[in-house]
């Protein structure tokens, strides 16, 4: 009796799951599922005003410990050297489709009046942490470089590697020019700790954690993401099929 029930239960769910797993591996079905990303993005963009702000919290709301995720220490010798030098020679390159390519020393970047925002970091896995970020609005950097009219995306090249692959991320111009989108150098009143992306990381507050590129070395303006690495706009997007639009 129990055997039969067990057989029916596992058989039934096996049939259903087998079907779902097969569908999951079917390219055209995955295409249908993936098309929802565009629908969601367009709908959210329609609902949300372009400059709708992510909630900013008070000091009392800060997470006691702001956990890190992903790379905790970029393993390259180049990064080790920068760390040893206290990032004194770290520069942020701005290039691609810009009128004036820049190479901004970290010290210069930190000397410009910056923005402080207490926001919530939402990981794709489900957890949230609230932190106070100090950083320069990305729009000011992009305006200083002068975007060409063909530029449509901003790509962030990072110093960390996953295996042999460099981490990178990208956002479109709506998020790039959003007032809360900053290149952060501080967290909770201190310089960024290494596990949180020292010395520079992106904060794009209306998207999930994996978009918040850490260890940012170079910002590139491009007209298309197709030519960059795997062509899907980010390390996770290329390698495990996370959504490029991570607004939900």
């Amino acid at each position: 009796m129990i055997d039969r029930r067990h057989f029916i239960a596992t058989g039934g769910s096996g049939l259903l799951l087998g079907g779902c797993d097969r569908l999951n591996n079917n390219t055209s079905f995955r295409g249908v599922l993936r098309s929802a990303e565009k629908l969601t993005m367009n709908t959210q963009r329609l609902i949300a005003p372009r400059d709708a702000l992510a909630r900013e919290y008070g000091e009392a709301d800060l997470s006691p410990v702001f956990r890190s995720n992903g790379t905790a220490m970029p393993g390259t010798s180049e990064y080790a050297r920068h760390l040893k030098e206290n990032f004194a020679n770290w520069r942020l390159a701005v290039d691609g489709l810009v009128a004036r390519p820049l190479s901004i020393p970290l010290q210069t970047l930190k000397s410009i009046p910056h923005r402080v925002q207490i926001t919530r970091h939402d990981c794709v896995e489900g957890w949230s942490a609230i932190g106070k970020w100090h950083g320069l609005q990305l729009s000011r950097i992009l305006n200083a470089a002068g975007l060409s009219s063909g530029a449509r995306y901003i790509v962030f090249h990072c110093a960390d590697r996953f295996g042999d692959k460099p981490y990178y991320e990208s956002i479109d111009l709506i998020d790039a020019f959003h007032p809360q989108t900053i290149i952060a150098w501080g967290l909770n009143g201190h310089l960024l700790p290494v596990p949180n992306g020292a010395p520079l990381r992106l904060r794009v507050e209306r998207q999930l954690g994996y978009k918040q590129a850490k260890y940012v070395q170079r910002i590139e303006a491009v007209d298309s993401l197709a030519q960059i690495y795997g062509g899907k706009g980010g390390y996770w997007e290329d390698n495990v099929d996370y959504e490029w639009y991570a607004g939900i």
Partner: protein
Amino acid sequence: MDETAVSIEPVEAEASPPAQQRRFANRHRLPTRLWHWVNALTVFIMLMSGLMIFNAHPHLYWGQYGANFDHPWLSFHGRPIPGWATIPSTYNLAAARRWHLAFAWLLVVPLLLFLLTSLINRHAQRDLKPTRDEMRPSHLWHDIREHARLRFPTGDAALRYNILQKLSYVGVIFALLPLMVLTGLAMSPSMDAAWPWLLTLFGGRQTARSIHFICAMLLLAFILVHLLMVLIAGPINEIGSMITGRFRVPPERPNEPGRP
């Protein structure tokens, strides 16, 4: 429970006219039937892909934030949900999100259409809204006892929703499903910027995530009871009427004691 109050022997069954034995009636209008079957598929996929997403961080918190160093109210080790209950069946957060966020549309749009349709054609007010009479404790208690004895309404009474059905359907349609959608949206950083009241309403993203999970479990409980009731009430007639709308009316029990 009182076992002896009602006699169910067909004492001198008065021959009921044959016509009454096989009476058919229309039950469930087209929007109800369409929505039911869309949901039958969608809710299962949402539950199973949602459980896979839960596997990525199987800890639940109250408040605005919540992560590994904070205090969860519910916490599991490893990946607690087994493969037979998740989509896909092996750990894959990215794929589960693709399923969940695509089928979410198939949950939200038909839900809105059904809510709108059933308010306009007055299905909600006429068939689902409990009457004052039905909400009397004695009536509720009577229906609970009848259900516990697996004695379901017969005759014309079987063509209306009984009060326990009404309460569970109203609960699912007007509370659980909208809550699932709203707490789901409250977890979206972009929606929180667009609709800041979402965070205010639920008191934080992690609270919304907890409510999302609790509602999912309540929905699962509803589905299990619902399937059990269909099995007991006569699966062929019940499922058939949800497909075709044609329902064979269960004949009145002889000696039916009048309802209180």
